[in-house]
């Protein structure tokens, strides 16, 4: 993205992460995704008279975990507020959120810029709130259908400072948050199910201006790509307005992926009209130092630490280590494969080439891999022990992938694919091939080393790939020395 000369862009992101709890933030209803409508909407979620919210302990633990992960301040006393607005998918007429005393304040995320340097993005706060239900406008002529299964699903809203200066930085920051919340196991990170959603506050100003421009808020972006596209479109739009001496109105806009543009949303109410006030149904939540220390003691290894450990412990390259540690599920997969194969380097190679290649080809995520980490570990151990050649291993991998086999060892035995390492069996075969090609044999002897490939190839063909190419190479050399 090219920022026009003389302009600068300021972006702050609000990221809503659905916390992966079993039950809702204020009720004991399930948070399961994709169920029949309204079967997970309890009396509390429906705002029936006389009900009271009760805070879910795990929601707090997960928010604290996030705070510790970004080196933020954890509030010893936090409280909930009411944000009032009318919309049918919010049956109470207000959302319970945290305005004055959020659980997490401050903190930061470091991102890598295009030139490889590190930039720190400050986090303003992260607060807890409840998600709304879903409105379905298409299915009925003059009605809107309301599904309240999602109402009350816990959200952690992570608010950044306007430190982000381009679409690239915004995406890098959003990806880092995605990586962190999945590593911390506080959010499943499933973008297609709306587990992570972005609102972008975007403004532009002349480079010599010391104050921020008037911002537009682009709501509900549900993919990294839409986040990027919306910022590109919106900054272009604002710069064009200002260059034409028009002003940018402060408003909320929606991004339309079909048209690749943003357009104004009918304004609900302006921020000051939400009439926030302390939630009288909930008392302040007290978090003790003991509680924070207990959560600290259970913090999982974070991506940067894990990457360094892969380098130190397994002697992986920086690039491989970065790739494998980038996603918690991928890193877990690699570690299980390495443990089962007792060969970390070879496991790393197989994960990044064969496994990622197949996942990519079939558009699968690592969690849905048909070949388990234990199965791959077993396969890699057989290559390491010279039981099978790399070439045969690829065939075995394909069989495992296609579900034609459940264990590499069994498949190899059933199909007689063991590597031929028995010298007494290989020697007569090699001798036969050498004798059958006298011309090539002579050329090899006279120094045409390229022909070694020809002979090894012939042996591999005859053995259907089961010979060990290096061993074949050694035997050919010895045989030629013995009888030139």
């Amino acid at each position, binding site marked *: 993205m090219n920022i026009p000369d003389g302009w600068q862009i300021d972006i702050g992101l609000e990221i809503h992460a659905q916390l992966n709890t079993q*039950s809702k933030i204020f009720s004991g209803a399930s948070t399961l995704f994709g169920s029949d409508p309204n*079967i997970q909407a309890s*009396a509390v979620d429906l705002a029936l008279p006389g009900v009271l919210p009760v*805070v879910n302990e795990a929601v707090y633990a997960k928010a604290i975990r996030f705070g510790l992960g970004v080196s933020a301040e954890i509030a010893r006393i936090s409280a909930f507020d009411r944000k009032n607005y009318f919309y049918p998918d919010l049956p109470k007429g207000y959302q319970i959120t945290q305005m004055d005393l959020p659980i997490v304040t401050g903190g930061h995320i470091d991102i890598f810029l295009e030139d490889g340097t590190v930039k720190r993005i400050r986090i303003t706060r992260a607060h807890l709130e409840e998600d709304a239900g879903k*409105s*379905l406008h298409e299915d009925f002529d003059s009605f809107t259908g309301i599904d309240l299964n999602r109402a009350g699903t816990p959200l952690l809203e992570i608010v950044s400072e306007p430190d982000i200066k381009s679409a690239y930085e915004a995406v890098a920051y959003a990806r880092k948050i995605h990586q962190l919340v999945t590593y911390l196991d506080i959010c499943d990170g499933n973008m297609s199910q709306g587990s992570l959603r972005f609102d972008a506050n975007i403004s532009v100003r002349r480079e010599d201006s010391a104050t921020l421009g008037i911002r537009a808020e682009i709501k509900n972006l549900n993919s990294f790509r839409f986040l990027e596209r919306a910022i590109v479109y919106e900054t272009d739009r604002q710069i064009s307005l200002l260059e034409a001496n028009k002003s940018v109105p402060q408003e909320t806009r929606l991004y339309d992926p079909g048209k690749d543009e943003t357009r104004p949303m009918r304004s609900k109410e302006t921020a000051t009209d939400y009439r926030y006030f302390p939630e009288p149904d909930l008392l302040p*939540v007290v978090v003790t130092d003991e509680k924070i220390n207990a959560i600290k003691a259970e913090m999982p290894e974070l991506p940067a630490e894990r990457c360094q450990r892969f380098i130190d412990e397994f002697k992986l390259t920086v690039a491989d280590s970065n790739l494998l540690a980038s996603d918690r599920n991928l890193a877990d997969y690699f570690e299980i494969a390495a443990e089962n194969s007792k060969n970390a380097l070879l496991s790393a190679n197989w994960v990044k080439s064969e496994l990622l290649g197949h996942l990519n080809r079939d558009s699968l995520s690592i969690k849905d891999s048909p070949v388990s980490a234990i199965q791959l570990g077993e396969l890699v151990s057989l290559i390491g022990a010279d039981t099978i050649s790399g070439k045969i291993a690829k065939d075995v991998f394909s069989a495992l992938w296609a579900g034609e086999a459940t264990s590499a060892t069994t498949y190899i035995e059933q199909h007689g694919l063991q590597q031929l390492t028995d010298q007494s069996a290989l020697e007569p075969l090699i001798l036969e091939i050498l004798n059958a090609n006298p011309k090539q044999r002579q050329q090899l002897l006279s120094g045409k080393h390229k022909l070694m490939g020809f002979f090894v190839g012939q042996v591999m063909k005859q053995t259907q790939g089961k010979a060990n190419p290096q061993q074949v190479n050694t035997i050919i050399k010895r045989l030629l020395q013995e009888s030139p």
Partner: protein
Amino acid sequence: MISNEELDLLGDLAQLSLDPDSRESTLAAINEVLELVATLNAAECENVKPLAHPLETEQMLRPDAVSETNQRDKFSQVAPLFEEGLYLVPKVIE
């Protein structure tokens, strides 16, 4: 003191329509409350911590477990309109 326009805005936000006959008395009542707030605002409270709740106790948390079962059939009986598992409301679209 709030004006007639501000009274209309408040009505909009609260989704309440005011009976024209009671406008004047409502405006007077609200302004009386605001006078009381102004008196409170004048109090010296620089060193007083904001109060999040009048009860001096803390929130109990509940364990993260699903304790609610599906009661859609029962709940939907008190809804004015319910079809295909959805609560129906007059069409709203942004």
